[in-house]
């Protein structure tokens, strides 16, 4: 299981996002909803998950070849995920079962 606590602590002390966010496709999570139900990215491209909600979210995927788990992230946290295998990737929030989206990764 990934241990993100040290990372989160590090970012809480002052790292900030800048223009990097704007360059990526960003999925936001306000109101316990993903901002898109489906998006398409090319293999190797990044998708940014930004928790702009008022509660923690735990974004993950169990789709084969593109598994990841961001752990419980507080409001204000954002993380880039790069998908390595082509195909449909189901992304969910472990905490909130209505939050589901599909990332279609193309060659």
């Amino acid at each position, binding site marked *: 299981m*990934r241990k993100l606590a040290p990372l989160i602590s*590090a970012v809480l002390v002052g*790292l900030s996002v800048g223009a990097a966010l704007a360059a990526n496709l960003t999925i936001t999570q306000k109101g316990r909803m993903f901002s898109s139900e489906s998006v398409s990215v090319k293999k190797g491209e990044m998708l940014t998950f930004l928790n702009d909600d008022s509660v923690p979210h735990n974004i*993950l995927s169990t789709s084969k070849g593109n598994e990841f788990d961001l752990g419980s992230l507080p409001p204000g946290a954002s993380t880039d995920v*790069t998908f390595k295998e082509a195909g449909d990737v189901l992304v*969910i929030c472990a905490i*909130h*079962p209505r939050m589901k*989206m599909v990332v279609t990764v193309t060659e």
Partner: protein
Amino acid sequence: MPASKFGRSMQTGSLVAAALFTTLSFVNISFGAALVGETRRTELPSKTAANLDALKAQYRRPASIPFPKENPYTPQKMLLGKKLYFDTRLSVTSAQSCASCHNPGFGWGDGLAVGVGHGMAKLGRHSPTVVNAAWGAIFMWDGRLANLEEQALGPIQSPGEMNMPIEQLMTRLVSIAEYKPLFAEAFPGEDMSAKTLAKAIATYERTVVSERAPFDDWIEGNEQAISEDAKRGFALFNGKAQCSSCHEGWNFTNDGFQDIGLPSEDVGRGKFLAVLKMQHAFKTPGLREITRRSPYMHDGSLATLEQVVEHYDSGGVERRSRSDLMKPLGLAPQEKADLVAFLKTLTSNLDPTGVPVLPR
């Protein structure tokens, strides 16, 4: 309950992901296939406190019951489902029905700490209410069943609960002459099957809806409907006590899974989703009809609403899986009393539920 007070609507907007999601539950995650970057901190716009009217608007009762397009409402299905729900012959012993554990007399639960199953053996968890199940996103305390149709068949077949193999049940129901025409009216052209049985029971369960409570009258403008204590409790519920982070909306749940720090060995959702925060996590229950549903929590370990508020005020057991929302709240005695006063406004004056005459 008089579902006729509600209109009926089709649930729309099925998600693209629904089919994929059903395959997820039993998968353990092996991490590292996608590349995850460092987590950054982003400054969000500062939140302005919602004014009371805007807050109250989030708690308005819906005008209709959502029924899925795969199983739309019909009165024939509902009436058949009600008979099946109250029929003890759905258990192998012919001694238990759905209503044994989900009894309208106990707020559609059983009033016990944990359920009692086949052979009078105690089960591991508290019997959840079926009130407002129509709005559920996922079912069972651990979320192992995706919809109400699956849920209807789960306890019937579970060896520890009604212990009834589905083929044996269908043989038994076919042998009860008066069931045949009821199934034929509810499902024209279809055989009596586990599928139609589940659809009928689920349709009936969707009509079990909490009645108007004093809280609803207050939400709709009657300032005399609830006490000043309860109004302060509502403010605390949405503010300092943070209850509404999970118990949100008119049914007071977002169906989310949280480890709220109860000292139980049960891993709950963690059995089906092997990530840290799902260990000891259970589905957030709604709070309607709450005073009729004691004892409380997934393990029935807390007898009163006062004890529940004390638990949340303490923050519960500290462990890595505990929800990041759980922490000591520092509530004053009056604040705790106000929260309990508020919770009591969510119980309605339920009409009695008539038990149906069963087919022979």
